[in-house]
């Protein structure tokens, strides 16, 4: 019982309070690559606490405008709770994979809604772009998870993670999954929905103060959730073979390994971010369509049982 409490606390800390720190690391890495001083790794905490202590400007009196950041925040956090932390899954049931996909999509939809609710062409353009990205990337995410589900015969995330074997289709599925996660995380070159220098942060352009802080925080959480899932899918079939993660020690080692991979993947994406330019929405859609085509092939391979 006490174990469960500890794991729950750790899960909440990782999901809610670690993301700003990871963002700080990412900013630091970018600064080093760009040969500049850069902020401290705790800068994002200061930014968020600053924003959260400030009043928001209200460009519209629509309720949705106020709710959207909270919805995005809650959705991102909830999606994280169905993921495995070592041996422990805060909320586990069969079919939670669909819940994960839908709940995570809700945070994107809140982002989109926020853009459409204000009369600002930049916000609308950003919301439009977000919609196009969701519509083109969600199928890829679905295919990747579908490949895993098909392979393991399970519809729960923990079931998938623990039962995966490294078949060719699974490896291809993982590549697809990595691509989908990176795109969903809205790292450069896929940050077209915000695109500061083009459409002034898109849907966020009218946000300020507390609401803006919550939105930023929600987006950081969403990134961590996606990468956490990826590292789980990657670690359980590999490291899970070596250690028995159902024992308390094994579970702790697995959790630490997951954490380690989270930091590694976050750092890797910082390197990619620092050294590429932003794509155009048309280029993103074209590329996603191509990847989707590849995904269909992978799904076919998986259905043959390879």
């Amino acid at each position, binding site marked *: 019982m006490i174990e469960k409490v500890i794991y729950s606390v750790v899960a909440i800390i990782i999901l809610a309070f670690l993301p700003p720190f990871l963002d700080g690391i990412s900013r630091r890495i970018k600064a080093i690559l760009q040969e500049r001083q850069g902020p401290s790794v705790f800068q994002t905490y200061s930014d968020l606490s600053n924003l959260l202590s400030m009043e928001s400007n209200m460009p519209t009196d629509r309720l949705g405008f106020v709710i959207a950041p909270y919805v995005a925040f809650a959705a991102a956090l909830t999606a994280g709770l169905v993921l495995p932390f070592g041996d422990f899954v805060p909320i586990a049931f069969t079919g939670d994979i669909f819940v994960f996909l839908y709940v995570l999509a809700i945070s994107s939809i809140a982002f989109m809604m926020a853009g459409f609710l204000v009369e600002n062409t930049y916000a609308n353009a950003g919301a439009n772009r977000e919609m196009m990205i969701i519509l083109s990337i969600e199928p890829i995410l679905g295919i990747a998870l579908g490949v895993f589900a098909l392979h393991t015969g399970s519809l729960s995330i923990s079931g998938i993670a623990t039962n995966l074997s490294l078949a060719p289709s699974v490896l291809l599925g993982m590549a697809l999954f990595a691509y989908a996660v990176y795109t969903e995380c809205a790292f450069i070159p896929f940050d077209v929905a915000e695109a500061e220098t083009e459409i002034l942060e898109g849907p966020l352009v009218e946000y300020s103060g507390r609401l803006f802080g919550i939105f930023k925080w929600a987006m950081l959480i969403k990134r961590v959730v996606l990468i956490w899932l990826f590292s789980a899918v990657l670690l359980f079939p590999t490291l899970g073979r070596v250690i028995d993660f159902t024992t308390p020690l094994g579970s702790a080692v697995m959790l630490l390994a997951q954490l380690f991979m989270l930091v590694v993947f976050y750092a890797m994406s910082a390197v990619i971010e620092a050294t590429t330019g932003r794509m*155009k929405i048309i280029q993103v859609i074209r590329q996603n369509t191509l990847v989707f085509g590849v995904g269909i092939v992978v799904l076919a391979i998986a259905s043959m049982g390879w």
Partner: protein
Amino acid sequence: MVEAHTADLHGETKRKHGDEKAVVNREYLDRLIERFKDLISEVKQVAYNQWVVVTDRENLPKLVLWWLEESGFPETQLSTMVATDERPINGKFSVTYWLSVNAKAGDIYVGIRSYLPPNDLWIHSVAEKHGGANWYEREIMDLLGIDVKNHPDPRKLVLPDDWPSCVYPLRKDFTYYDSPPGEKFYPYRKTGEKEVVVPYGPYHVALEEAAHFRLYVKGETIVDCDYRGFYAHRGIEKISEGRLTYEQVCYIAERICGICGTTHSTAYCEAVENAAGIEVPERAEYIRTIMLEIERLHSHLLNFGIACHLVGYDYGFMQAWRIREHVMWLAERLSGNRKTYGMLTIGGVRRDLLEYRKQLVQEVIHKINTEFRELVDKALSTRTFEKRLEGVGVLPYKVAKAWDVDGPLGRGSGRDFDVRRDHPYAAYKYLDFKVPVQKEGDVLARALVRIDEVFESTWILEQAIDEIPNGDIIAEYREIPPYLEGIGMTEAPRGENIHYVMTGENNRVYRYRARAATYNNLPAVPDMMRGNTIADAPLIVASIDPCYSCTERVQIVDVRSGKAKVLTEEEFNRLSIKASRRV
């Protein structure tokens, strides 16, 4: 040593010689006179490479359009247009179109002039058939109240939205501190069916200064673009004519632009020197060249960084600005200032180049050559970066020619045109360099032109440092006689800068007209925008390296904020008028 060093950088065994420089050539003027001898009433030479041809206003467009469109002269250009209120001298207004020939064909500027009676001010539009004259003619409508008949777009250009009609600030009976109140109105183009207006500006993260591009968008595609600028118009010309001496104008000219100030002060000094026939010592010419090239280096590095930033490629942005820092530091050692060097004065330069500082220049050149080459290689091999630049904002040669665009924008579209070579000034006539030209006309082509120019600049600097002669740095001159005229031309980092000066009495300029490179480039922006997406808009605008305050001729000042109090617009205007009276 210098040669060996460039050789291994460029992978050539020996540096090829650059282009030939143009020499003064009267032949083009003779052909104009021969063709239109019945219509020309007077021809006079105003400076070594400048002539003025006087005709009547009925035939003015005919002569101008013949030169620009029909003559077949290489790379003809409408370099500037000056209208002057000459009522105190001869009771008339004058309008002069300054035309030039480029592509190393000959160093010549011809001003085609008409005099207009003050009670019947009109001319026929050239812009009707030649787009490049569009802004010039709108400007004289605004500032001097000369009616341009059949102009395709007779809206306000320079004056603010709330400027009253029938008040013309550049007329001699208008004092420089007047600020008449009026009603605010501007007729933007109406939106068509299913079009959405995306206001890119007046304030936008990707714009360094205030400018308003009104994008008419369907989905993400730009179908049209309207431009409203000159928010930063401060009337430098009027101040120069009204209250400054020749020497003082030099410094205000430098403050026209925060980036390419020295080209402006050089152009102004040249204009006065050309008008008054002052010979600049050779050492001063070299020092001018060195400062100009340092300025070009920092400007091109800055623009490259911005282009990187706009496509989200912040690695390139930071690196380019880090490399630029060497140049800024060098400028500070040579002139005492990182920017706005204050080196220029009429007749020469104010500071000498000390022997031991040559070493500094060579060190910086070496750093730039290696570090920038490395950065360029990395950037151009970054797929997302190149993909964003390629095929975006295409300006075909014909359109470029029609708008008379200049600088890297023109050269990116295949216009073989560089003032340093085609109208050699300062020490460029002694130095060897190439003029890079690209044919594609897209944002990438412009970036490549600038990249090549960075290396050409370092090469020019190397030669200038090696060859600089000893001697005076400033010419002595007596009082400048009144009512002489001349133009000064420089190749700014953004293109051709033309300053026109008519000397006046009491050590003052009678008429001063500064034309910055961006003035010719901005009107072409709508043509580059159409068919691209809003994601490309900032990149396209940045690719011409726009300099709004140059175009609008201002200086930027800090405003100390007063007590917090909400003013209505009218109150605010009244207060500002009162405040400016005090100054």
